[in-house]
């Protein structure tokens, strides 16, 4: 594995295919997510992430269940979230579910935590939508302690107190799943990531790059402020999206009806304008390579690149074709990113390298005493 990770993230939306009016069933879509995940491993990808949704029109409310099923059918793939809700889930249940998944998958799990994007979800779980930021802060403080401390006494504003509580199973090898914090507008979330020395993930899909540069630079500065390393050593993940065909014009022609009717940006800007203003690339493999490599110029050298390709009603067959094409350019992307990467920029976090770092730190402490 190279120093950078590449993967696919999806929110598992049920969207009508605008070219033929078909709509997958929930069963078909859940099975499609499994097929996509296995394909990501087959093409040499590193990460598959699913975004938690509880609204009808989406299929992944129970990510750890889905990921356990995928973990049983894969060998190398890291399973992640995009994002999991730190606001509406009980931190105790997050700690238990993802530690269980971590053991079953032999450490192939990390988490991108975030607030979630729709206010109506909060009351479904007994939470107040106006308290999103406060819930994010308090719940993460608790989750951190549940994984890092064997016995926790805790009292907060948003859940019942804990007395002498031990969250089980304990993290694999004493190393909790790595946590990224994802946000597209809340600086407090970048502050949380910086304070704990965790990763920061910017989905980098909807808006011009300047918006994300501001948040990522803020995270990098605060990461250094809290003494975890230099700004360049902060752990950054980015999203992106592409639609690729060998011939650029074929990609544009095939993707246009999906773009024009997409739930998020459809019936808005033209494909050409949106492509010029955001990280979306619709074109040839070479164009996708060039655009993706440019991200490091704007955001600094980073650790993880995720792509959105399963959306807008694209059929599973097309998504799998896109993954074949991604597999063809992955060696180039890895080599080019590694070539430009200065020494001192850390590798993407894995269970293996974090365990090694922990053991090295323990050895150092032992030899000093």
């Amino acid at each position, binding site marked *: 594995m190279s120093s950078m990770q590449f993967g696919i993230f999806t929110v598992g939306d049920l969207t009508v295919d605008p070219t033929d009016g078909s709509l997958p069933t929930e069963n078909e879509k859940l099975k499609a997510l499994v097929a996509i995940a296995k394909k990501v491993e087959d093409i040499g990808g590193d990460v598959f992430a699913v975004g938690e949704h509880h609204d009808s029109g989406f299929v992944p409310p129970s990510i750890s269940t889905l990921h356990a099923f995928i973990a049983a059918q894969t060998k190398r793939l890291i399973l992640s979230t995009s994002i999991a809700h730190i606001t509406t889930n009980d931190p105790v249940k997050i700690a238990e579910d993802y530690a269980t998944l971590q053991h079953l998958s032999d450490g192939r799990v990390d988490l991108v935590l975030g607030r979630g994007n729709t206010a109506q979800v909060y009351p479904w779980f007994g939470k107040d939508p106006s308290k999103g*930021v*406060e819930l994010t*802060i*308090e719940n993460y*403080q608790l989750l951190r302690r549940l994984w890092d401390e064997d016995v926790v*006494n*805790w*009292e*907060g*504003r948003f859940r019942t*107190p804990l007395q002498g509580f031990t969250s089980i199973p304990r993290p694999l090898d004493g190393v909790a799943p790595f946590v990224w914090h994802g946000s597209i507008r809340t*600086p*407090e979330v970048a*502050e*949380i990531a910086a*304070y704990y020395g965790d990763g920061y993930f910017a989905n980098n899909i909807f808006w011009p790059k300047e918006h994300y540069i501001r948040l990522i630079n*803020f995270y990098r500065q605060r990461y250094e402020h*809290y003494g975890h390393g230099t700004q360049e050593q902060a752990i950054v993940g980015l999203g992106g999206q592409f639609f690729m065909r060998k011939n650029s014009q074929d990609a544009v022609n095939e993707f246009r009806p999906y773009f024009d009717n997409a739930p998020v940006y459809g019936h808005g800007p033209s494909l050409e304008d949106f492509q010029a203003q955001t990280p979306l690339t619709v074109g040839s493999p070479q164009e996708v390579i060039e655009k993706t490599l440019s991200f490091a110029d704007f955001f600094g050298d980073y650790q993880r690149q995720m792509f959105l390709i399963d959306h807008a009603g694209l059929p599973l067959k097309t998504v799998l074709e896109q993954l074949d094409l991604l597999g063809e350019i992955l060696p180039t992307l890895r080599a080019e990113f590694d070539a430009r990467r200065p020494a001192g920029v850390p590798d993407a976090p894995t269970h293996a390298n974090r365990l090694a770092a922990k053991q090295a730190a323990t050895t150092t402490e032992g030899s000093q005493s």
Partner: protein
Amino acid sequence: MTAIVAISSGLSESSSTRRLADRLVESVGRQFGDASIELVSLRELAHDIVDATLLGFASPRLQDVLDKVGAADGLVVVTPIYKASYPGLFKSFIDALDADAVIGKPVLLAATGGTARHSLAIDHTLRPLFAYLQALVVPTGVFASTHDWGSEGAQALEQRIDRAAGELTSLLKGAGTGRSRDDEFDLFSDTFLSISQGPKAPGSDA
């Protein structure tokens, strides 16, 4: 000495409008330092204001207030919102002012209402009125609903009060409003501080 006049048009003796005016006066006084601040309650001038509307001239004690407003360096204006706008008494008082009474003066606008649904009334009714009068209105309007006086909203209201009062103070001292969009990430807000300093919940053993 810098003279600031605060006008409260709350219509009951101990109104939330008067409470908001008191809080704003306190904050301006604290942030400005050496200023003379006088708080005027329109309730006590209600009959004089109606009389002035009918007669076309002000009673001596109303004229005294109108003169103070005209001579003030800055104003704090607080009114309840009734039926989507300020009450008639408040407008009648404004009608009694000379046309040029507040031209170029820094003015802080604040209002109270039953629910947060009225909060844009400051921007939709008070700002146009003071734009017509050619006042220099500070960017932050302070709206307080019933909810804001409870424990849940009190902290946010306190922050809005201090921010608006700070803007008025800076304008009066010739330093603009003292804010720019780069201040958006307020690293010293309670929310931000709670990340690095841990929860403040009682009984926390952090």
